């Protein structure tokens, strides 16, 4: 496959480390729990001093919602990106860089454009969530399935096509949004972009359940995914139905991306950062290590970052901007590390 030449997984040849993957996982888990605890239970008082706070009032409830959203966002980002990397056999493309979350925004916008405000205004959120996700899954499977089954001259050309496709989705969604009436636009924009600090609470239960289901499916297939890391042809030689795995993975990824975009909004480089760090730090190339490690790194990054920004810099909604910035630089660095293939 053309993808594999440019970005064959380097972890397979990685040297074995003295620290085992279980130890690394335990350290990461401890850190993640510590970050979450500190975020939940410490606040800056009126006198500008940071101290423990055991009053479980409204403010605590709000932070609890944000913490849940952090867990779900880290889970979705980690799983979707690592899964995507494995089935497309590359470590540069991520679902959000090639515009999957822009596709989600576009589908929502088209829905409101065709049906009107009640498309998102629906009180009963479960069937609606299912319907939206179904539309997203269909489009993603058809579109990206087609993109990845084509013969591209290079990975970078494919990546460019993906990036431009994402830009096209965003521009078209913006075009349609300009045609909506102000009330419809309001209804849409409330539902469309979540933020970590202002989470849409009635989405949390169904998002959590969907995450659990996807998590169980992925965990059961982790050994198949390990085989897929070898590349398309070796995996097929070992009896893996590559086309089926690719389609299934795209479906799961579409579900995860819709959840995380609905909850915390589009984050272009978040999944890329945590997946890249996870390959470096997990100490094992198997998915039993890389998947949980990416999740834990995501939790540490979001909860720790949110805590530091909130209590030290007093800058609430900036976290995603900083992640974009750092992630963009990391992405460029990764591109340049592959100079040999350019």
């Amino acid at each position: 496959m053309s993808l594999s030449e440019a970005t064959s997984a380097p972890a397979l040849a990685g040297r074995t480390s003295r620290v085992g993957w279980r130890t690394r996982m335990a350290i990461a888990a401890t850190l993640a729990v510590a970050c979450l605890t500190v975020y939940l239970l410490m606040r800056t008082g009126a006198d500008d001093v940071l101290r423990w706070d055991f009053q479980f009032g409204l403010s605590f409830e709000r932070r609890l919602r944000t913490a849940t959203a952090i867990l779900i966002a880290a889970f979705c980002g980690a799983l979707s990106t690592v899964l995507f990397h494995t089935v497309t056999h590359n470590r540069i493309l991520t679902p959000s860089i090639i515009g999957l979350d822009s596709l989600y925004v576009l589908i929502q916008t088209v829905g409101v454009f065709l049906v009107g405000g009640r498309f998102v205004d629906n009180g009963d959120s479960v069937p609606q969530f299912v319907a939206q996700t179904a539309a997203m899954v269909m489009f993603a499977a058809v579109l990206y399935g087609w993109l990845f089954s084509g013969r591209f001259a290079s990975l970078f050309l494919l990546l460019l096509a993906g990036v431009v496709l994402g830009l096209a989705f965003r521009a078209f969604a913006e075009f349609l949004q300009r045609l909506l009436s102000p009330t419809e636009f309001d209804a849409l924009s409330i539902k469309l972009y979540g933020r970590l600090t202002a989470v849409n609470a009635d989405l949390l239960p169904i998002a959590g359940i969907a995450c659990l289901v996807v998590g169980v499916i992925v965990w059961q297939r982790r050994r198949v995914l390990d085989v897929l890391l070898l590349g398309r042809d070796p995996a097929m030689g070992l009896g893996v139905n590559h086309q089926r795995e690719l389609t299934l993975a795209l479906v799961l990824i579409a579900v995860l991306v819709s959840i995380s975009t609905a909850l915390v909004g589009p984050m272009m480089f978040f999944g890329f950062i945590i997946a890249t760090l996870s390959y470096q730090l997990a100490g094992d190339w198997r998915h039993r290590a890389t998947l949980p490690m990416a999740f834990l790194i995501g939790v540490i990054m979001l909860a720790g970052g949110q805590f530091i920004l909130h209590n030290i810099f007093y800058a609430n909604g900036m976290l995603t901007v900083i992640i974009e910035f750092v992630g963009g630089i990391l992405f460029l660095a990764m591109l340049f590390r592959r100079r040999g293939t350019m």
Partner: protein
Amino acid sequence: MTDTATDAPAQAGPRKGTRLGRVALPLLAVVCVALLLASLMTGEYHITLAGLLAGDAEMWRMFFISRVPRTLALVFAGLAMSFSGVIMQRLTQNRFVEPTTAGTAEWAGLGVLLCMLYIPGASPMVRMIAATATAFVGTLVFLGFISRIRARRSAIVPLVGLMLGAVVSAITTYLAIGANLLQAVVSWRSGGFAHIVRGFYEPLWAVAIIAVATYLLANYFTIAGLGKDVATSLGLRYGLTMGIGVTMVALASGVTSVVVGFIPFLGLVVPNIISALRGDDVRSGLPWVAVLATVLIVGCDLIGRVVVRPMEIPVSVIMGVVGAVTFLAILLTRRNRVAL
């Protein structure tokens, strides 16, 4: 009317070569004139051709205050973006480079924001100088980045530029949030021609000067496009040509982005279609680049003016859709033929 504007370039795809060019190009010129007339005649204030010919003084006054400046501004913006695209594609030897995919536009945005932050109440002229300066720095950074890439034709060149642009735009957003200027940045970025009246578009005449300079220097850019070694042995002062080219691009995109905001993908789509129809000679292609750019930008602007009348959709939004789709079409039709 508006349909022909967007369909014509799509039908004139890069497949059939020059035979198609002989039919498509004159047709394009006719469409261009028709669109310009339509743009002059479209708007909320009632202006009719008959009224103008009869010498209605009020109509003529509005015509020169609002319609003529807007149409001229459109033409100049189209020229600025497409000629910048032509120059950058020659200098980088890569077909996918233009102010959007090189991050130049985002750098200009950073310049405007810095100007808002540190020189509040600056005149448009100062803003333009700031935008041009950062666009210049940004283009140099981009060129520095891609000089490390061995395969000049690779699709990685525009990718690096787009990601560089994303990073710069994250910095801009960060600074804007800190200073509570995010809304100003967003509304400026989507820009548009709605507010263009007499007394506001005049800086764009600078673009006309740059366009003439591009035409005069076209042969130098053609030779520079052969690569540093070949160009130098043909007697070209490569460094000087690069410097002049980058300055012209920075100036054009700086001025345009201050007056009308970003116009994505125009500089990529137009030169590619023209060189597919006519070949790679810069000088003889430039007039057609100008015509096609005018057709596209005026067409997109007309769609934006007509669809949600009496409101308007900024041309950057429509251009984003049309441009991205055309870019994709070029990418996907070429993926079999060109080993990029």
